[in-house]
């Protein structure tokens, strides 16, 4: 009896040792990969000319040793000996303190996308965050407190018009509060630049808690359970320059109000699904049991379609939280469905119709940028291939049947395009509507 007991105990210890050693090994490997990525990001940053380094809020030195990884984003604090503040030298006696962090996203081609996130706070300890700015690698302001910045009417610094303000950046002695002017710059009215901006003077703000790592990350979309190929596709889509798509990603990804989780898994027969799980919580499942031969472009179109559903769901939650119908001001079909309740079809049909009316060209433009690496200029239409793919995602919706009646050449072209990217093969070979996939395979 004792022998059996000892054998069982020995076997249990051995199994638990093996299991633990495996998980420790996984953690180690993950850590090595993370450190290697941080080292590469540092090397690339130091060796290359990056406009972001000239940002007026790029103050201090990147602390690469304390860099961390969150949701595939490398977070690097900028450290300086003293707190730094900005203020309007002539008119504003209340300084705003700021601290900045580099947010670095590894791109699919193994290069890095650098962003600077700047938090403004009214107190020297940065306990009360008033606002934040996000600047892209080209030093353009891309997010003002989670919203697309309104183009400020600024003239050049040399204009010296009456509307110009002289701003100063100060190093502040933590103990005495004494300020030392580091540099000055002009902020003027008129013009159309949207690069560096003085901190806005109001609104928003934290509730007195120190910043957590999660709060420093621009992108709160959780893709940790997404397979590598769609994860890389998503990372590329997040930096799309199309305004509508950028606004969607900014709204869903730039603050802690909404939680979007994108996973690879079983989405039934569909290429992807989106489900509202609780208020402001949306789960997207990208099918990894089917559509295995689909191109990256097809998966990009799936992701944009689902992320637009999540965006519409966030509007519905905004409306349900506030009972303010103005939420749907720019979305008449959603207004009909959720406020008027006069829309005849289901909620999914309403969302698809709104997508058809409002986002087909934006999704097409984002897909074209994804595929070619070249953004579609504002005011220009994306190529037909890409809008066809955007329409293809709506092909089961009633609006599609109305817009493209059965048997028409347009409908066949769209469906052949969709099928070709879905399967990775030429569809309709030898016919006028032959479509050959242009996207790369995922594997």
């Amino acid at each position, binding site marked *: 009896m004792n022998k059996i007991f000892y054998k069982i105990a020995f076997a249990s210890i051995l199994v638990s040792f093996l299991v633990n050693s495996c998980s420790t090994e996984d953690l180690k490997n993950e850590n090595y990969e993370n450190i290697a990525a941080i080292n590469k990001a540092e090397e690339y940053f130091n060796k290359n000319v990056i406009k972001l380094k000239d940002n007026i809020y790029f103050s201090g030195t990147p602390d690469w040793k304390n860099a961390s990884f969150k949701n595939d984003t490398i977070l690097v604090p900028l450290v300086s000996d003293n707190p730094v503040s900005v203020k309007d030298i002539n008119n504003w006696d209340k300084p705003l303190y700021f601290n900045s962090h580099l947010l670095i996203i590894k791109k699919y081609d193994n290069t890095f996308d650098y962003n600077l996130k700047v938090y403004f706070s009214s107190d020297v300890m940065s306990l009360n965050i008033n606002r934040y700015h996000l600047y892209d690698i080209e030093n353009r302001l891309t997010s003002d407190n989670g919203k697309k910045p309104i183009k400020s009417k600024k003239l050049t610094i040399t204009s010296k018009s009456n509307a110009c303000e002289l701003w100063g950046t100060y190093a502040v002695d933590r103990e005495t509060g004494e300020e030392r002017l580091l540099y000055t710059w002009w902020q003027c009215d008129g013009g159309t630049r949207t690069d560096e901006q003085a901190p806005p003077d109001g609104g928003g703000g934290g509730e007195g808690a120190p910043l957590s790592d999660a709060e420093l990350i621009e992108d709160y979309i959780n893709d940790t359970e997404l397979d590598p190929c769609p994860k890389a596709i998503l990372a590329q889509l997040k930096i799309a320059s199309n305004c509508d798509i950028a606004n969607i990603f900014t709204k869903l990804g730039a603050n802690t109000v909404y939680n979007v989780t994108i996973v690879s898994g079983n989405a039934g*027969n569909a290429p992807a*699904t989106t489900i509202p799980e609780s208020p402001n919580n949306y789960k997207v499942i990208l099918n990894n049991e089917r559509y295995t031969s689909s191109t990256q472009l097809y998966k990009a179109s799936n992701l944009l379609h689902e992320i637009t559903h999540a965006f519409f*769901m966030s509007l519905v939650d905004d409306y*349900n939280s506030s009972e303010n119908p103005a939420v749907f001001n720019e979305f008449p079909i959603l207004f009909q469905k959720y406020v008027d309740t006069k829309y*005849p079809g289901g909620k999914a049909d309403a969302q698809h119709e709104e997508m058809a009316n409002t986002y087909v060209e934006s999704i097409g433009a984002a897909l074209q940028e994804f595929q070619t690496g070249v953004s579609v200029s504002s005011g220009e239409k994306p190529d037909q291939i890409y809008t066809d793919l955007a329409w293809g995602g709506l*092909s089961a919706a009633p609006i599609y049947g109305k817009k493209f009646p059965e048997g028409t050449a347009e409908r066949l072209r769209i469906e052949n395009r969709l099928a070709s990217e879905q399967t990775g093969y030429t569809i309709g070979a030898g016919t006028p509507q032959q479509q050959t996939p242009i996207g790369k395979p995922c594997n």
Partner: protein
Amino acid sequence: MKKVLCLFIISQLLFSCSVNKDLNAPINDYISSLNLKDSDKIMIIQEKINNNVTIDIFKGKTFYYSGINKYVKVEGVDKPLYDEKNWEKMKSKYENKHIKDHWIKGDYWTLKDFKFPNIIFIKQEKFPNPGKYEKFDFQENYKVFSFSDVIYYKHNKYAVFTIKSTTTDYKDTDTTSILILTKIKGKWTVFGEVGDGIYR
């Protein structure tokens, strides 16, 4: 005597058919409303969708919103058509307590359930899976339907059933909704459609 027996059997068969068609009048009226030509063919998935699907979609989901301190029904049939008491009645009468599968194997639709004559029945497992197999052997493009049994709600004032509607080209047997019908001028007429809360 034999003649009498034959007449009795035939009359019983006809009667049973008409009972089936009456029970399924909402589905038949819905198919009629599609204005199909006599020469058209439709495909119907032979297994019935479980009534539990209808009952669940009807109820949907309710979330609590702290901003307004209220519970809001975000999916399912909206009030006042939905009310807890009548939904409970529906559930106790129509719920399938033993079979939880989406489609019920062995409970099949047959031609005698429908007025529309040109129906091709197909078993659910034989229907091709999009995204998995890329070659299909359908020679023509048919409309494809899958139905649950009809549930009657609020003293037969309303009829509800689950439907999947696709084509042999699209093969989308995932998208699922319930149709709510009421009688207008003697015909069951759709006045509401509610999805399953999964957006595709």
